[in-house]
């Protein structure tokens, strides 16, 4: 099971990339598992970090094949 992970702004800078495909089989299939994996892998600042699954920030915690997960630093629009 594979998902696409996107990084933006300060988080992309910390990760050193904007996008990658991650195979969940060895990590776990919950959002929590993926979050822990990525934060540890890139030493991401998780202060004020928000995560969107398929463009929705919300309550879903179970991941499905093909999902798009986005790691979002604080918004700065306007």
């Amino acid at each position, binding site marked *: 099971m594979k998902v696409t992970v996107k990084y*933006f*702004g300060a988080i992309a800078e910390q990760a050193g990339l904007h996008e990658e495909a991650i195979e969940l089989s060895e990590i776990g299939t919950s959002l929590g598992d993926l979050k822990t994996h990525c934060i540890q892998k890139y030493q991401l600042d998780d202060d*004020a970090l928000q995560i969107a699954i398929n463009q929705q920030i919300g309550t879903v915690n179970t991941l499905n094949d093909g999902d798009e997960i*986005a790691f979002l*630093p*604080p*918004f*700065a*629009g306007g």
Partner: protein
Amino acid sequence: MSEKKKPKKVFVSGSISPEKIATSIANHQVKTNIGAHSIFLGQVRADEIDGKTVTAIDYSAYEEMAEQKFYEIREAAFDQFDLTCMHIYHSLGEVKSGEICLFIFTSSAHRKEAIEACNFLVEEIKAKVPIFGKELFEDETHQWKVNR
């Protein structure tokens, strides 16, 4: 779905010119049921931070999600307020200090609706749309902007 509610392009490349704003205003003079326009403009400040001055902000966005959020916010505003028109433009890429990066334009028969809708849009956009701003300093260092 009415014509005014269809998704519209919000993002523009670089700063928003005063001429674009004038054209937008002029385009509404044929709509003679409008009595009030409310406009909000965001302008990039040359903030001084630790002795360094911001020369520009480089805006980026999670574009697909941002367009979806703009759409939802527009829908909510049309539901809540009796508006004739609503326009939102936000910059992507580099906007120099002193230049405009956000243009919100609401029109209604009466002032109350136009003003309240404009305020609603400003707050919703700042809170819900995934846009990121890299504040560039004179010495080519940078820091990431956070909305208050």
